[in-house]
């Protein structure tokens, strides 16, 4: 299967602002056919897409709670339905927050421990190499990706964390350059340095760092590209 036969849908809410960056990277760097899905569009069942990306940004200004208002919009019903039918869904940053608020992923995002917006490069350790989001990542490879968020402090009850752990659903953790998971490498106070998780069946994932901002050499890192390469690989091999 050629990449250009793979169809990706990118949801657009009022206030989404990484939508175009994802669109461009998917189309121009990875040669996938990506198109936008306006939050009010009646794209019933989202059946035509091989995967869906919920991009970052400030949907509804992130007012009330990050992602809360977007999580209640009609298109999220379709996304939920799509996910339940094993569709692949990736939420990036605000997209991750929306998936949490919609109850598609477990947990919540609190404000960063600094109570400040944090824009910087972080290092990620991959904990599960079998998911659609990580299957092209080389083992022992520490990834460098940028973060840019105010509410990335992942929190969940102990029981939930246990469940995520047992299931292998914690897919990325913040680490240092050498891959050690340390307090100093945690940029936002996230519980157990959690940077990205998946659902029970691994077809839905959310992560705070931005793979679309680290898929080209000129931007200082191509490591984010592995996330998209994984999705493509997974779809091709399916």
């Amino acid at each position: 299967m050629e990449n250009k036969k793979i169809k990706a849908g990118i949801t657009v809410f009022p206030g989404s602002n990484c939508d175009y960056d994802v669109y461009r990277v998917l189309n121009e760097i990875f040669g996938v056919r990506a198109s936008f899905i306006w939050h009010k569009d009646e794209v019933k069942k989202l059946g035509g897409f091989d995967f869906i990306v919920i991009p970052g940004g400030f949907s509804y200004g992130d007012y009330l709670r990050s992602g809360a208002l977007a999580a209640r919009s009609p298109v999220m019903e379709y996304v939920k339905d799509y996910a339940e039918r094993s569709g692949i869904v990736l939420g990036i940053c605000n997209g991750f927050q929306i998936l949490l608020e919609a109850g598609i992923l477990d947990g919540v995002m609190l404000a960063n421990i600094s109570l400040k917006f944090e824009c910087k490069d972080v290092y990620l350790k991959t904990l599960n190499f079998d998911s659609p989001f990580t299957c092209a990542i080389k083992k022992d490879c520490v990834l460098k990706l940028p973060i840019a968020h105010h509410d990335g402090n992942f929190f969940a009850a102990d029981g939930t964390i246990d469940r995520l752990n047992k299931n292998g659903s914690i897919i990325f953790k913040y680490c240092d350059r050498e891959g050690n998971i340390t307090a100093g490498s945690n940029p936002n106070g996230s519980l157990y340095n959690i940077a990205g998780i998946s659902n029970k069946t691994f077809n839905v994932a959310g992560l705070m760092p931005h793979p679309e901002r680290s898929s080209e050499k000129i931007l200082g890192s191509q490591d984010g590209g592995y996330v998209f390469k994984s999705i493509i690989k997974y779809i091709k091999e399916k």
Partner: protein
Amino acid sequence: MTKKAFIKVTLKEEVLDPQGKAVLSVLKSSGYDNVKDVRVGKYIELEIDRDNFPSIEKLKNEVEEISDKVLSNPLIEEYSIELK
């Protein structure tokens, strides 16, 4: 006729409140040593058209639904409603 609903949304006790902590440290460093703890929540006012509800109970139910589904995240927050 409209009615007002006042909703307090607060973090559940067991959830860490970084904002409250930050306010507490500001208060302490400003010499307000008697303050022992601070919790920060939200206070939301809704103005609702009363006429479309057969009873005030129904109106209250709708406010509860809104509070539950939109205004709060039940995983970490709880809320209380007052109608006026």
